[in-house]
């Protein structure tokens, strides 16, 4: 049994924010929170149910000149995002990635806001969001602020959200280079390695997730310097050994994958 806990169902975003603190924690899909309660790694006294807040729902597009912004409510589940025509058209890499997180049940109940708020160190979503330059709209008692996902994710299960703040929406700038792509190595329930690649004007942005304390971002220049930069990055990036493989193994896989993707050949 879970520990005894209270449940509050605020009727507005303002009421939800007013009720949040370290002991009163936001609650939506429960994918991360319920196991955390069971394990005792989080011991709040009350759940603040966010599921009925319209501000956290829906998927919208906003056009501003040449750029279109995709605004995805924090309550959007992985399955909803994967099936959304707007997400598929404007951010196909994101749609594909959220279609392959966890399993069908996790994708049915787990929300994008919860995925990011928990700063799960093996989150495919966080890795992709950082690669796409996405951010989150955060509400708190001091009003709203925009935080890049890169700044949101601090470390394993550690975000830069204050205990009285919550993610309202995920904001993804578009369009993306059609060459944007994500690959993951996964043999167990969570990925061993996730690699997002987004070509850009200054080079190719590479974000490596799942194998480090938090996703690691690097820009690899195109042309003659690419191999040197790639070698330096792969040699220096701090990776973690765990039950999915040693750091050396992950480094070898990463080097092999990136050489194939960016240098057009397989590493020796």
């Amino acid at each position: 049994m879970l520990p005894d806990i209270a449940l509050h169902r605020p009727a507005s975003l303002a009421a939800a924010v007013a009720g949040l603190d370290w002991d009163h924690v936001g609650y939506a899909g429960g994918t991360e929170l319920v196991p955390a309660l069971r394990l005792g790694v989080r011991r709040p006294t009350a759940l603040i149910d966010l599921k009925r807040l319209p501000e956290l729902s829906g998927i919208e597009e906003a056009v501003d000149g040449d750029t279109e912004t995709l605004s995805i409510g924090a309550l959007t589940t992985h399955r909803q995002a994967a099936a959304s025509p707007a997400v598929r058209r404007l951010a196909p890499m994101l749609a594909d990635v959220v279609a392959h997180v966890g399993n069908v049940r996790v994708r049915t109940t787990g929300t994008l806001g919860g995925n990011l708020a928990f700063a799960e160190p093996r989150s495919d979503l966080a890795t992709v969001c950082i690669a796409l330059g996405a951010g989150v709209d955060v509400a708190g008692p001091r009003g709203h602020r925009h935080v890049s996902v890169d700044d949101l994710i601090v470390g394993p299960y550690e975000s830069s959200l204050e205990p009285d703040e919550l993610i309202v929406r995920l904001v993804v700038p578009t369009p993306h280079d059609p060459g944007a792509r994500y690959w993951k190595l996964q043999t167990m329930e969570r990925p061993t390695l996730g690699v997002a690649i987004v070509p850009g004007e200054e080079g190719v942005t590479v974000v490596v997730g799942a194998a480090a304390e938090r996703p690691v971002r690097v820009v690899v220049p195109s042309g003659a310097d690419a191999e040197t930069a790639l070698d330096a990055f792969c040699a220096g990036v701090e990776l973690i050994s765990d039950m999915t493989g040693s750091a050396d193994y992950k480094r070898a896989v990463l080097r092999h994958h990136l050489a194939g993707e960016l240098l057009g050949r397989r590493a020796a």
Partner: protein
Amino acid sequence: MNVVEMHCTVNGRPVRDTVLVRLTVAEFLRDRLGLRGTKVSCEMQVCGACTILVDGEPVSSCCMLAADLDGRRVETIEGLARGGELHPLQAAFWEHNAFQCGFCTPGFLMMSKALLDTEPDPGPELVREWLDGNICRCTGYRSIEQAVLSVATTRDGDGRPG
């Protein structure tokens, strides 16, 4: 103890109850309603043994609070057979020897039902993708996959067995 009022339907029957906030759906089904067909194993959404359908969607009942069933429609393994007649998926699991100890079977059946309700004629790839989050430790997956595909085939065309 913190409690909350809730009402829902379980396998078509209305249920009204006052439940502890900390009560999971799996505990509610098994301990309050006596529906023990739903199994609990990993308690972290990995194994799929506790899979049920809520408003037609597959969820892990071990990681959902009973309080969240308020106003919703629940389907469990006990609701699959009708009047003593096995659901086509149950019959197919029987025909294909798709279980041994049977512990994981309710979860596999409910996940398979969710798939076929969404996509009546899935190919092997989609079956594997949907059942990827269900673990069987004795039968192996081949016979389970074939059982689900046989039901999909049976439903093909004008409904005659394929």
